[in-house]
């Protein structure tokens, strides 16, 4: 079980241009890539979207962790490729679906690696989401790396009791994940109940009109980045609607599994 995927979703503070950016333009970039990867069904476009993110990864000085998340995602990508290929899709189509998944993993990994959960919470509050909901969401994001670590410990504990996850046929291997998933779920439920009690003990939700010490303010560079993200999305939609682009796959069949 590869848990590297989660490393690339963990925020680490760095003093780079990308880290200092307002979270909203970063979210716009991620959403633009997300939308383009849904609009298109072309491996060339996905390759461009993937490679296009590399300068941002370089600027954020997070190349190693980004590579970890892509490597972790590669395991699931392989599953997507195999399932598509086995269910009658062409080789190019299967690769296209795989590439689409990697583009999405990469885009959201870049967003979460460079955006602190606190900033994310501020964005959600700014969007007038109830505080309880935005708190729940940011806490969930914050807990992803903790749960990944916990999952690794559970895997270690079960392997120490003779569990061999990489032996047997596919069905047996899937069944072997039950001793991993049950402790993970039970532990997550216990943790959430304890967290709820701790929050209530500290008067969570007592004050309805919350005030924030930090307020988000867009800089000119943030507006510029937002503008570029929206422009790229519009150009993408225009190209999809009116300009034929070469497609390597000539015989797309309807897949049974769509990559996500």
């Amino acid at each position, binding site marked *: 079980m590869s848990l590297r995927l989660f490393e690339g979703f963990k925020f680490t503070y760095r003093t780079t241009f990308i880290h200092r950016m307002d979270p909203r333009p970063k979210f716009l970039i991620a959403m633009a890539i997300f939308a383009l990867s849904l609009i298109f069904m072309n491996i060339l476009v996905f390759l461009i979207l993937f490679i296009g993110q590399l300068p941002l990864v370089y600027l954020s000085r997070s190349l190693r962790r980004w590579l970890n998340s892509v490597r972790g995602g590669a395991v699931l990508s392989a599953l997507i490729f195999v399932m598509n290929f086995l269910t009658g899709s062409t080789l190019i189509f299967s690769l296209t679906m795989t590439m689409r998944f990697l583009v999405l993993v990469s885009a959201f990994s870049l967003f979460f690696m460079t955006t602190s959960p606190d900033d994310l919470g501020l964005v959600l509050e700014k969007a007038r989401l109830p505080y309880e909901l935005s708190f729940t969401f940011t806490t969930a994001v914050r807990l992803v790396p903790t749960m990944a670590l916990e999952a690794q410990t559970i895997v*270690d504990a079960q*392997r*120490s*009791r003779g569990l061999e996850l990489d032996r047997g046929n596919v069905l047996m291997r899937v069944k072997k994940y039950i001793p991993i998933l049950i*402790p993970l779920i*039970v532990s997550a439920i*216990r943790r959430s109940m304890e967290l709820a009690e701790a929050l209530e003990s500290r008067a969570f939700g007592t004050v309805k009109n919350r005030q924030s010490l930090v307020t988000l303010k867009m800089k000119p560079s943030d507006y510029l980045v937002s503008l570029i993200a929206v422009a790229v999305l519009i150009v993408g939609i225009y190209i999809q609607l009116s300009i034929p682009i070469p497609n390597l796959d000539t015989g797309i069949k309807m897949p049974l599994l769509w990559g996500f």
Partner: protein
Amino acid sequence: MIEVRGLHFSYDGKEVLHNINLKISDGEFIAIMGENGAGKTTLIKHFNGLLKPSRGDVFVDGASTRNSSIAHLSRNVGLVFQNPDHQLFSETVFEEIAFSMRNFGYPEETIRKRVNFILETLDLSPYAEASPFMLSGGERKRVALASVLVFDPKHVILDEPTIGQDYQQKDKLRNFIVQMNAQGRTVVIVTHDVEFVVDCKPRIILLSRGSVIADDPYDEILSDNKLVERASLTAPQIGKLMWSLRDLDFDARILDIYSAKTVLEQRLEKIVPKTL
């Protein structure tokens, strides 16, 4: 025998263990102690191959852990994790304990006998058909312990075995561990519990910041105030008493209650004759 030669281990670019060298002979009783983050758990995870050295080697019964699978090593090196909630998943305590034996391919009859024996030994028989999730923290800890001890590994490694146990259970646990050791099994415990260590009388391997800073019998280490302080430990109660009486010629290396009683009785007899 477990032998560690020039072990270095790095995680996320940070060296967690530096040049660890030690030998643990068959049948020895070892306590690995040190401050939080000293690398104790990281070290014991090398003993059953969960972690492989970045540099150096770990040999278990002559074979390098680099060339053996975790399942193969675990058959001889039983590792009990600190938090029982990281392993419990079965519907009943009986099934939970039987899990490892099924993985190792034991026949059902042997599994039944061994599980019943360990349930009895660790006071868990009344809970055999109960869900492990419904037990108290201390009971869950004993189930986790039983689930490893049941397959009778040659080397038993326990990460913080006394956490969450009441005093009576701690006493029973100590008796059980000492008995296991007396039967020839190697026992390695990772703990901060100095009183428990004094009761078990092991050899202590003291870690600090990823290095071994001392490797000696328990009474030499726990009576050395500088070492104890350096590893963020505290001396046992009896040790503190003897240290405070050192000006009256009491031996500060006496740490256990029975030796202290003998010494104090001898001294009292001189002051207050038995006839009185």
